[in-house]
């Protein structure tokens, strides 16, 4: 079947799948950001009791595969009494996984802020919380934005795995179409193009815009 007919016939399913993918992406991003900032800061803490759990978390989530984590959260957690609906299990795993990588980005960016800034903040008696929130993190932000751009593309790719626990995202829809029609090239090919468009023409430009805003706030523009 030529590609245009294919698109016309299956566009409702593809659109629905893409919408689900976008929602999973946004939810996973929200979780990843929160986790990354929390764990990144925790890993910098002087207190052993705060630092070690963060290190353990980061090493476990970075050292095991996203698919393993996804299956574990969906199949094994219920045995501990925590049964999550599959869409939540989906974006939760992706978010927790990418958050672990993000934590390293946050930590590296904070450490990249010049020492003099910490000292100047101390010299006007700012408390550690205010110092981090108003002085250090805003400056760390523009350092971490470019690698976060790459991480978000990885996160988008990660959401494709939630199809494997039957969440009806784009990946799931094309698998269904393929199973019914064997139009593999059209189905999987279209999905590839859609993911590519989302990554290259939505995520990447958005991150570039954020980088621009961040450097404007530093007065560099």
């Amino acid at each position, binding site marked *: 079947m030529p590609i245009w007919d294919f698109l016309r016939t299956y566009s409702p399913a593809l659109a629905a799948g893409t919408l689900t993918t976008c929602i999973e992406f946004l939810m996973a991003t929200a979780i990843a950001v929160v986790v990354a900032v929390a764990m990144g800061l925790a890993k910098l803490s002087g207190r052993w009791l705060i630092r070690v759990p963060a290190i353990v978390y980061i*090493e*476990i989530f*970075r*050292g*095991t*595969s*996203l*698919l*393993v*984590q996804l*299956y*574990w959260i969906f*199949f*094994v957690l219920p*045995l*501990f*009494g925590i049964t999550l609906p599959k869409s939540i299990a989906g974006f939760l795993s992706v978010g927790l996984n990418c958050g672990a990588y993000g934590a390293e980005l946050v930590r590296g960016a904070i450490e990249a802020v010049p020492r003099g800034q910490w000292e100047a903040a101390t010299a006007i008696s700012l408390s550690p919380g205010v110092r981090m929130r108003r002085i250090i993190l805003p400056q760390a932000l523009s350092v971490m934005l470019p690698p976060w751009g790459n991480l978000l*593309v990885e996160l*988008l*790719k*990660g959401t*494709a*795995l939630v*199809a*494997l626990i039957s969440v009806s995202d784009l*990946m799931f829809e*094309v*698998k269904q179409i*393929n199973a019914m029609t*064997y139009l*593999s*090239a059209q189905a*999987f*090919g279209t*999905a*590839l193009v859609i*993911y*590519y468009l989302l*990554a*290259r023409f939505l995520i990447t430009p958005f991150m570039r815009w954020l980088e621009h805003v961040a450097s404007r706030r530093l007065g560099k523009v």
Partner: protein
Amino acid sequence: MTPDWRWDFALEILPRLLRATGNTLTAAAAGYAIALILGLVLALAQRTKWHSITLVVRECVEFIRSTPLVLQVFFVFYVAPQFGINLSPWTSGLAAIGLHYSAYLSEVYRSGIDAVPRGQWEACRALNLPLRRTYLRIILPQALIPAVPGMGNYLVGIFKDTPILSVIGVAELMQMANTVGSENYRFLEPFTLVGIIFLFISLPAAGLVKLLERRLRLAMGL
């Protein structure tokens, strides 16, 4: 409420999981070998003097890097037979993973090569070295040494991505855990053991990469 962990079951399935781990490691190594070679080809292809080839290759690399591996695996597995190329799950999985990671590695190679100072190229030109020798003896050795840590990280990454091959039935670790779990209606031990096995391999590997990076940095006087 915690389920009871059955040590006897865990020990019973462990041998099968460990054997499957062997498959996983083989798949990772083979995929990585493909990626190493193909990645270099892609990197060099972006340095030709024909602007159109450079652009096309660039976009292809971006395309592969920006789309999910699992989707690429399905694509290769289902579409190849329709063009008359019959591939086993193993082969199509390897091809897809090799292709996916070659895109990443091509970026690593590219930035390594770009980092070699201009003067090196000019010295080769002045000595009238042929292009092949220029690359092999002068440029690539300098380009690759700082690239080693990045490449090491991708090796660990490939290992962690092999479970994706389970979706097309490749008999690696995740697939075995799924099988064992379905056979016995118990997923707690198989999935947890898989996680632990992964940690046991990827954490030391990542540590080795960091060690290698530090050693190289010292050796290069940085």
